[in-house]
């Protein structure tokens, strides 16, 4: 744990001091990290980072790209059946953070993650844990719709097939139909399931990606700006969809639209230059922010 007065991690990196190891144990730790005030006017996360029924918990997560630190001591709970929105100015580390939750950062050369992240109390960075199984449990929808250049049917059936969830064509048909229905795409594509997924419109492609993600029944769905390439109508449909999905899934969504965060989420986390500045009920964050940086951001003074 970093308990000393100076949290200047860049300095500690320069002196070759190893980054703190992932020994934090959730539960025994105090609720907010014990960081001193630094020159950005930031001290510690404001608000309650915990929830009653956590699905995922992160404690003191630091992420480094080579020598550059992108996430600093972020601790946050993500509860069952809730939508957590992550907002903040560009480059503040929202994507970096969300990608830690299904270890997509593993694929980036030179990216290093420290701290503890658990899914249902199980450390997801445990070396004995299989990352493939983790990603089946924590699905992801990316900013840019990225359907496979295969048929719509095969796009949705891919996950169930590789994870052995289906054994017959009938079962596959069923999963494909159910997933497309839940993603609100079924009526639009049911007559052309064999045509290419890349031939759909941007909004349809994104819903296809959501259908693909929910086809394997994940516990958590991560969404990194899922609507940034979509028009308002497509956005509205996806927001509706997120609201419906909340009944069965835990969702973490990164968004640049504060209206969207306000519409779809129950809790909101505000990031700033790698720090988690404030967490709270979405209502409270947007009507009564407690931190000056949060207030500046949501009132449009910067960002």
């Amino acid at each position, binding site marked *: 744990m970093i308990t000393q007065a100076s949290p200047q991690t860049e300095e500690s990196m320069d002196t070759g001091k190893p980054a703190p190891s992932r020994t934090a144990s959730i539960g025994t730790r105090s609720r907010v990290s014990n960081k001193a005030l630094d020159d950005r006017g930031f001290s510690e996360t404001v608000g309650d980072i915990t929830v009653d029924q956590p699905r995922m918990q992160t404690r003191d997560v630091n992420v480094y790209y080579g020598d550059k630190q992108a996430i600093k001591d972020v601790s946050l709970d993500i509860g069952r059946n809730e939508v957590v929105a992550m907002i903040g100015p560009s480059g503040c580390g929202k994507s970096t953070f969300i990608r830690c939750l*299904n270890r*997509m950062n593993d*694929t980036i*050369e030179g990216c290093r993650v420290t701290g503890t992240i658990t899914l249902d109390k199980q450390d997801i960075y445990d070396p004995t844990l299989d990352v*493939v*199984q*983790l*990603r*089946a449990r924590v*699905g*992801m929808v*990316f900013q*840019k719709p*990225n*359907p*496979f*250049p295969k048929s719509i049917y095969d796009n949705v059936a*891919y*996950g169930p097939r*590789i*994870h052995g969830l289906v054994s017959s064509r009938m079962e596959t048909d069923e999963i494909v139909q159910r997933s497309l229905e839940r993603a609100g795409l079924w009526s639009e594509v049911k007559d052309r399931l064999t045509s290419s997924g*890349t031939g759909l419109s941007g909004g349809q492609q994104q819903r296809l*990606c959501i259908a*693909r*993600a929910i086809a*394997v029944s994940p516990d958590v769905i991560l969404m990194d700006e899922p609507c940034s390439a979509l028009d308002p109508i497509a956005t509205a449909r996806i927001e509706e969809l997120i609201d419906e999905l909340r009944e069965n899934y835990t969702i973490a969504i990164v968004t640049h639209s504060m209206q969207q965060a306000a519409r779809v989420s129950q809790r909101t986390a505000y990031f700033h230059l790698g720090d988690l500045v404030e967490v709270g009920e979405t209502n409270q964050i947007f009507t009564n922010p407690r931190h000056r940086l949060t207030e500046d951001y949501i009132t449009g003074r910067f960002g």
Partner: protein
Amino acid sequence: MTDGKLITGAELAASGSWHGSPQTQRRLRKRQAAEKRFRAYGLVAILMGVSFVALLFFDIVAKGWTAFMQTHIQLEVTYDPEVLGIADSGDTQALSRANYTGMVKAAMRKTFPNVSGRRAKRALYGTVSSGAGFVLRERMMANPDLLGSTEKLWLPADDDIDMLLKGHIRRDAPESDRRVSDQQIAWVEQLEQSGQIRKQFNTTFFTAGDSREPELAGIRGATTGSFYTLLVTLILSFPLAVAAAIYLEEFAPKNRWTDIIEVNINNLAAVPSIVFGLLGLAVFINFFGLPRSAPLVGGLVLTLMTLPTIIIASRAALKSVPPSIREAALGMGASKTQMITHHVLPLAMPGMLTGTIIGMAQALGETAPLLMIGMVAFIVDVPGGPLEPATVLPVQIFLWADSPERAFVERTSAAIMVLLGFLILMNALAVVLRRRFERRW
């Protein structure tokens, strides 16, 4: 501002607008001229390239197309048991060893009964190809009942007579300057009058192996050798190169070692091909004791040569697969192997195949390294497998180009045409593949 007078920077600043000023007009004209010139340079370069290629093709086709025709002489041959020296038509050994040349000579004597004297007779026999006997033998072996019968047959003429008929040897040249004597010309003219000499399609060129006699030489041996050599090359280089490319692109850590490997692969692509030939000679033949002149060794050497080409093309193809597809697959919980085999490879395959075909086309035209491993030997038999001595098309071209006979000149060009045909076919295939599998994402 329209009086054509130049305006100064200060005036410009004062007037607030520089659009439409004389300077602008002049600059516009200059820029448009520069653009026109730039296009013209490109056009000239293309025109020059195209005209060189056209010239090359024209030259080769003009020289080579006559090789597809061959002069034949019609003779009435008698399968005379006495001349042949066969008593029993059931004896295959005797059939194969019989004196078919004698039969041809007898037929010639019958056509020209007035020729006497040893020299004149030798000249007479010389107008028919020494391969005419083989034609008779083949017919006889296939059908022994012919023994004792007589039939009219078109037999290949000697290459000099062929050249005479094709106009490469001029009849009005002084006798001492041409390889055909006045007497032979007289016989040919006699045959022409009786319609017993004509040019017909040269099947021998496509069905025979090499020969000292141009009229008997064909490219079958060389094309078969090329086929086996390329087969070995393809079987070895494609999987090796794809595996290497996948490892380097998808698995290898980015460190000094992989940098060194990368640089060396690029260097390997630039190594003169004859060096690979020397390597093949030292390693495959002298050390491992593989047979000389064999397509297997040729294929191994060409594999070394084409590997870097295919690796580089395959890596480029892998690199061009968008990262979003990889992320999508990994995000779905696909393992790295699944990501590669299900998504990356299918998308990279057209690029890999294009690279492979281009590498193969290069290998098909390669000569120098094969000279080093003995594929330049004079080989008459069509190879029956990758371990039998063989030569390849470009080496055959090299060999024929080196032969003194006039008739080999046209055969050289004809062989080049065949080689170019294969190359064009392969490159067309590469284009088709690229078109067919091109995908948008």
